[in-house]
C-alpha cells in the first residue's frame, strides 16, 4: 500500500500541471477578452479561398 504515497503525490503533480496551464492562459491574455472570440468563430473564412484562387 506504500504505493499510495507515490500515487497521491503524482496525481497532485498532474493537477498542478493543469493549474500551471491555466496560469499560462491567463498570463498570455486569453481571458482579457472573452466576448469577441464568440463572435469571431461564426465568421466564415471566405477570404482565404479567394487568395487560393488568385494564386
Amino acid at each position: 500500500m506504500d504505493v499510495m504515497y507515490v500515487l497521491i503525490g503524482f496525481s497532485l503533480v498532474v493537477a498542478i500541471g493543469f493549474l500551471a496551464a491555466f496560469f499560462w492562459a491567463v498570463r498570455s491574455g486569453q481571458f482579457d477578452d472573452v466576448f469577441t472570440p464568440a463572435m469571431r468563430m461564426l465568421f466564415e473564412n471566405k477570404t482565404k479561398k479567394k487568395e487560393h484562387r488568385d494564386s
Partner: protein
Amino acid sequence: MAELRTDTSTACAHCGELCGPDILSETGEAFCCTGCRTVYALLHDHDLGDYYRLESRPGIKPDAFSAESSFAYLDDDSVADRLLDFRSPTACRITFSIPQMHCSSCVWLLENLHVFTDGLSESRVDFPRRTLSAVFDPSVLSLRQLVELLASLGYTPDIRLKQLESRPVDRSMRSLYARVALAGFCFGNVMLLSFPHYLGLDGLTDPRYAQYFSYLTILLALPVLFYGGAEFFASAYRGLRYRTVTMDVPIAIGITILFARSSYDIIALGQAGYMDSLCGLVFFLLLGRLYQRKTYAALSFDNDYRAYFPIAVHVRESGREVTRPLDKLMPGDRMLIRNGELIPADSVLIRGEGLIDYSFVTGESEPVAVRTGDRIYAGGRQTGERLELDVVKEPSQSYLIQLWNKQAVAPRPDDLTSLANRVSRYFTPAILGLAAATGLVWAFRDIGTAVNAATAVLVIACPCALALATPFTLGTLHRWFGRNGLFLKDPSVLERLADISHILFDKTGTITIAGARVPEFEGDPLTEVESQAIAALAGHSTHPLARPLVALGNADEPVEITDFAETAGRGIRAVVGGRDVRLGSAVWTGHEGDDTTGGLLAAESRVYVSIDGAPRGYFRYRNVTRDGLPETLSSLREHYRLGLLSGDNDSDRERLAPAFGEAADMRFRLTPHDKLTHVRDLARAGEKVLMVGDGLNDAGALGAAEVGLAVTENDSAFSPASDGILRADALGLLPSALRLARRSISIIKVCFVISLLYNVVGLYFAVQGLLSPLLAAVLMPLSSVTVVVLSTVAISRSARKEGLA
C-alpha cells in the same frame, strides 16, 4: 425628422438610414450618401459582402466631417512614437479605440481589412473595450494612411491627447483570475485530502496516511495564504494606515490564526487541522472580489479635459497650412478652425464670423457670436464658417483647464466608509475582546484549552459571510443597472447612492436635449404657404438657428428659390415662390422698433421674419426636455429635495418650475465655479448630494458631490469625470435606481444578521473549546453560501419588480 420623408423612404443598403432613391449603385441598391455607396462598392469589389450578411445594414454612415479632417499630424514622428505600442522598420503595432463598432459585422470587417490593404498584416478586435490592434508595415502603409482608411469606412479611431500621455494596461484582472484559480484548486485538493478525516476513517487505515495527508494540506495551504490571501493583508494594512479597521482586518487575523493553529495541530499534535476551512474561506472571499470587479471596459469614468480636446490643429505657417500636435501649439500661432471643430486654446479672433457653441463648457444653450478681435476661450465649438485665430495661451494654460485643475478633487479612499467597514469597526474589537476573555477564563483551568478556545473564537468569527454580503448584493445590482443604461464606476457607488438626500440637475444636455430646439413663432400668424417658404429658405443656410426652421415645411413639396443671398451678421433673403422672404436680425427684416439686439447673432436668439417687405414677427427657440421628465421629477420629489443648477439664462424657468415643484431651488446663469461652491455648501450643511450633469461646466460639481452621474447621448461620447454614466434615454430609471440602491442596503443588513447568527452558533462551541475541524468545515462554507444565494436572489427579484430588464 423621419416622418418627413416617409413616402420616399428606402433604407440605405449600407447604414440603414432612411433615404430617397437619388443615390443608387449599379446593381440598384439605394444609399443615403455617396460615402455609404463608396464603402459598399469597396467591400463588394473585394468579396467582403459578408459584412452585410452577418447583420442587416450594419454600416456606419461615414461622417463627412471626420472623413475630411486631416490626420497629417500622424506623420509627425513624435506623435506616432507615443501612439505605437511597438515599432520596428518593418512592423509596427498600434491599438486604436474605435467607439463606433457595434456589431459582429464591424468585428468581421475590421478583422478582414488586410484583404484589401497592402502592408496591413493583422488586425484584431477587442469588442468589450472597442479597440482594434493592428500590425502594419510602415514602409508600405503609413500610420496616417491606416487611420484615413479606417475613417473612410466610418470607423474613425478616437485618438486623444490623454491617450498620448500614458496608457496603463490593467492587468489586475489577470492576477485576480490567477488567485481565484489557485485558491479553488487548493480548496478542492485539501478537501479531498481531508475526506478520510471527515468520514472518521482515520482509525481504520494506517495512521501514517492521515499524517501524510495532513502535511500535504499544509503544503497546499501555503500558496493560498501567501498568494491568495495577499489581497486581504494588503488591504487590511491600507485600511489601518488610514486609521480604519476595515472588514479585511478580522479576515487577515482569521486566516493567519487558522494557518498557525492548523500547522501547530498537524505538526505538534498530529491532528487534522483546519486547512480546508482556510482554503475555502480565501476562495469564497476572492470570488466575491472577482464578482465586484466587473467594470465597463469601453467606458472611461475619469476623463479629464485632455480626452475632450483634439490631438492636433491646423496652423498657418509662413503662408502654408500645416497640422500641429496640440502640445506644440504656442502663443502667437495662427490656428484655422473649421465648422464643427473645437477651439483648443484661448485665442483672439482674427478673421471670420465666429459663432461659438459653448453649451458643453458653460451650459449656455445658444451659440455666442464673436467678432474680430474678441477673445475666445478654449473648449468652444465653431458653428459656421472657417475662422482664423491667434493663440494667446498654450492649451494647458487656458481658462477652462485652469478651472478644471482648481476643481480637481482628490480621490477618496472609497471602501473605508462602506457599511461593511463601519460594522467592522465594532465587530473586530468585539471579537478580539471575546477571544481574550475566553483565553483568560480558560487560563485558570487549563492553559492548553485556553489557547485552543481563544484561537477557535478568532477562526470561527472570521467574517467571511459578512464580507460576501456586500460584493454580491451590490455586484448583482451593478449588473442590472449596466444592462439598463446606468453604468456605475464600481459597485461601491451604490452604497453612497442609497444615502442621497438632495438631487441637483444640470439643464442643458441633461434634462434638455442638447442641440434640439423647437422654434416658436411670435407675431402675425403665418399661413401654410408662408411657413413652407420660410422652411425652404432656411434650408439654404448652414446657420444653427436656421436648421430647426426647416422642419416647418414639408420636404416633399419642393419650392422654387431664386436670388438667394446671405449677408453675414445680418440675415438671409431669397425669392421663394415669387415672394421676397427675409430671415435675420430685426434691422434686416424691418422690425426697427423692436429689440435691436435680436437676430441671428444675438445672445438671446430670435430670428425675425419679413415677407414681401412686411415685418411679420420672430421665431424664438424653446429647449426640448427629455421624455418623461415631469414624471421622473415628481417621483423623485417624494423622497428628495431637488434643485436645478444651470449655466444658461432663465428663459426655461417657468416651463420647468411645475415639474421641479415649489420646494426646488432653481438657479440660473451659474459659472462652473458657482456650481461647485453650491454643491460644497450643501455638503457642508450635511446634505448628501447627487449631481446629475453632462458638460465640462459640471465637472467640478460632479466631483464634489457625494455621487456624480454624467448623462450622455451615446456611450462612446466624451463625458466628464464622474461616479457613473447614465445613458440619456435611461434618465427615467433614476427613481427606481435610487429605490433599489436603498433596498440593497437593507438586504445587506439582513445578510449581516444571518451571518452573525451563524457566528453565534460557531462561537457557542468555540468558547467551550469544542470547535472541531469538521464543524468549522461545514459551518463556514454554509454561512457563505447562504449569504451569497440570499443576497443575489433578493436583489434580482427587487430589480425585476422595479421593471428592470
